[in-house]
């Protein structure tokens, strides 16, 4: 198993944001993570990457058998774990080429070029390589470049936090193509998404609510449950465990 999250609990202030959460992602697998806003998906992504000094109160995070629960961000990245942010940050004075080259610097292989990575996310190298990665690029463009940077890293596990957010429907195919490409290159993908069609790309899906994984299973069943009961949830973070047990387990 590439990623094993075991009984992780995280408290921020008085809030138990993650509660005995367990999750497993095998090597090369695409695993989608569904859940309404505020259930802790992005916090989980941040905790797995070690951002903002986040460390669990209890539990363990293992990457390919190595305990990374308390590892710094750089060490996790050099072990092959990376994250594409939902709202990528802008950089003054840094070109797209600089950013992709820096991302590629610690790549696990050197058999590809960063121009190809950019093309893969639907952006023309001629138009974008020498542009600054600053506020003049739209959010959608920055999200695509973020994905290209993840590809450039040749990661073992890529956490993609809503890469489809703010992307028009016609472009979803391109994003899906990148996710499949990562998988064919041997990378596992933990895909956080609200979109059913994206979640269905996965071989496994997990449903998250109240800071924990309520169920993991075949994507059609999980997304169908999500559509019927979570999309219009009247009791956010108060899951009906009996119903879930009945319908999904």
């Amino acid at each position, binding site marked *: 198993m590439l990623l094993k999250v075991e009984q992780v609990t995280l408290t921020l202030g008085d809030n138990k944001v993650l509660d005995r959460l367990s999750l497993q992602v095998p090597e090369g697998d695409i695993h989608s993570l569904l859940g309404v806003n505020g259930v802790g998906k992005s916090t989980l992504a941040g905790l797995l*990457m070690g*951002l*903002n000094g986040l460390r669990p109160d209890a539990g363990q995070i293992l990457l390919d058998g190595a305990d990374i629960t308390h590892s*710094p*961000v*750089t060490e*996790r*990245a*050099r072990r092959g774990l*990376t*994250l594409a*942010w939902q709202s*990528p*940050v802008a*950089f*003054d*004075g*840094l070109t797209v080429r*600089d950013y992709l080259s*820096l*991302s590629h*610097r*610690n790549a696990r292989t050197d058999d590809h070029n960063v121009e190809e990575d950019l093309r893969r996310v639907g952006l023309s190298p001629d138009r974008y390589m020498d542009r600054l990665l600053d506020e003049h690029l739209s959010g959608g463009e920055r999200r695509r470049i973020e994905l290209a*940077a993840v590809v450039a*890293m040749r990661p073992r596990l890529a956490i993609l936090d809503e890469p489809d957010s703010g992307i028009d429907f016609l472009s979803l195919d391109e994003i899906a193509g990148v996710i499949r490409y990562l998988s064919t290159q041997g990378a596992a993908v933990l895909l956080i998404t609200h979109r059913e069609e994206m979640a269905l790309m996965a071989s496994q899906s997990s449903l998250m609510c109240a800071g924990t994984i309520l169920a993991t299973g075949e994507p059609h069943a999980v997304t169908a449950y999500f559509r019927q009961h979570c999309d219009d949830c009247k009791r956010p973070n108060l899951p009906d465990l009996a119903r879930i047990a009945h319908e999904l387990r």
Partner: protein
Amino acid sequence: MNSVDHFTALAQAYQLAGGDLAVLQSSQVARLVVSGNQVLETNEMPGVHMQADQMKDGVRVRLRVEPGTVLEQPIHLCFGVVPQEGRQVILSEYDIGEGARVEFVSHCSFPNAVDVLHLMEATVRVGAQAKMVYNEVHYHGPQGGVVTRPKTRASIGPGGHYQAGFRMVQGRIGELDIDFSADLDSGATAEFTTKAYGKGDDRIRVKEVVYLRGAESRGLTKTNIVVVDRAHTEVYTEMHGLAAGSRGHMECTEIVGGQAVARNVPVVLVSDENAKVTHEAAIGSVDRKQIETLMARGLAEDEAVDVVVQGLLR
């Protein structure tokens, strides 16, 4: 040290500051090379006239570009003091004739400075519809033993354009005291861009003033400064919107780390109801999300900070 040694030492420092040695050798590039108070070389081009007179502690330079002259290559100015101690005063006058278009690249190198004073006083006149771009890059050694005081008074004629960039991001600054101002006629534009990286006990003071005196004139100041350790920076920018349709904007970004201190004082003065001046300033530490984004790509934290800082100062 003879003049050949001075030239060689300055050329080395020039290279360290990112300069291309070929421009100091090409007969097709207008240039002036001054070490201390010695004029080591001048090379004029058609339409460009230079006069450099030695003074006791520096050089007086008169640089005139004939009206209508358009230069393909920038004019290179190379100033510096090679010994550990010294004083260099550069008094300069730039006259850019009507309709001329010219760019200057100025390298100031003090590679060994322990106790060096570098004073520059420039008077700039940009003629009607002329364009002058002036970029000054400093290379200082690791000691921080330089006091640099550049002062410029620029007047820009109708429809003229003046763009001045000042960059001091390599080596230790020591003490920097910038005093720039530009006075704009109708339809003229001026832009000041200043970038500096203070470390140790460096002291940085920047004063930039733009008078939008002519109708429809435009002014912009952009100041990016990073201070770490115990360095201090003070940025004073003033934009005077004095004429109808004039527009000005001041932008200041300062990053502080360690025990460094940064201050920004923008002054906006508008005396015409159809003028508009804006400003924005941000002082803070390096953005944590930027750092963590780069760390998530495998960069060590100090490498990530360096990438962010160098990007801001590029």
